[in-house]
């Protein structure tokens, strides 16, 4: 099962380090990345059956399709998006989503610090 690869490709194609501009998100480009991601997960369906990371990715993709109003038909070219467009996805600005997408949520923990009184 190579769902992690799909997750990593998706995160890589939608984060600023991929040379994408860093402010306005053009949905059309984001939808390309999302369709590529959906295609990649479909290809893993058989070998990833029962894998929690795979099923959570499929669930999340469904949510993202409706959230960003992307059509499931259309180009899935994972070619680097031309620099003129600047699709930074809100997902980049959500730590939990980034972690979930990378499939490493299970190991992630939060720490608490507090200062009070005298």
């Amino acid at each position, binding site marked *: 099962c190579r769902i992690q690869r799909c997750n990593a490709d998706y995160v890589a194609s939608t984060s600023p380090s991929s040379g994408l501009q*860093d402010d306005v998100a053009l949905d059309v480009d984001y939808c390309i990345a999302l369709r590529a991601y959906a295609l990649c997960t479909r290809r893993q369906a058989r070998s990833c059956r029962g894998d929690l990371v795979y099923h959570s990715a499929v669930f999340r993709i469904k949510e993202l399709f409706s959230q960003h109003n992307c059509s499931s038909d259309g180009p899935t070219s994972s070619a680097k998006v031309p620099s003129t467009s600047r699709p930074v996805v809100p997902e980049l600005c959500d730590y939990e989503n980034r972690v979930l997408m990378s499939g490493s949520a299970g190991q992630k*923990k939060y720490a*608490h610090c507090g200062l009070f009184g*005298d």
Partner: protein
Amino acid sequence: PHLRTFRNEFQTCKVEGAWPLIDNRFLSVQVTNVPVVLGSSATATSKITVIFKSFQGCTDQKVYQATTEDLPLAFQDGTRSGGESGSLTVVERGGSGVGRQVKIQARYIGTSIIVRRVGSYLTFAIRMPEDTLDFSEDNGGLQLCLHGCPRNELIKEHTLSRQSQQPRLQGTNTELGPLRPPHQVYTVERATARCRETLQVEDVYFQSCVFDLLTTGDPEFSLAAYGALEDLKALPPSKLKQNPPRTPRLYDRATSHTAAAAAN
């Protein structure tokens, strides 16, 4: 003030003046502590400054500053959020909680902060993903939240407990130096009873409450410990995306021993 570090250590420190709580690539937090009782080592927080460093695609740099006179609902530049994605926001926290509260949510780094004004002082709580912290000792320099207080800044509560056998006498010389007449005179029994009104479980928060009443005679301080416990429940150390486990009331063995001595 009392400090609970990211490693779940509990300390009571002097740290008078400006000290860094956190200083990493995502944010810096600095607090300024002032003596609560003239000439005493007991200090409390009068100013908190949080600097959110710019994060490409999510926010530019934002500074939040609270003082005992002003707990703003906005960053210093007047805005209440950073960047288009709204992944950095300042909101007023409602609820029956103690004192006025401000919550700062930095979604892009999975971080939440609560600043309260309780009586004349401030309290601070933060929850951050562990992988944004660098726990290695040699790294990160002086960060009280990460490495605790320098040894010479720790207040040795057990030496105080001998003093707290009798009511707080005015102007007595103690480990903490001459004390200005406190608001009230608290015996250990009265301080314990007062703290039990808000903190049923006798854990380190309870002991901090007793310690504060004994050192300051200021009943507002019993609410500081209560507020800090509420903040722990609101921002619990937990696994990502799990339902935060019931926060086990904290018994830090070493601290509870010395704080129990203070409470006694």
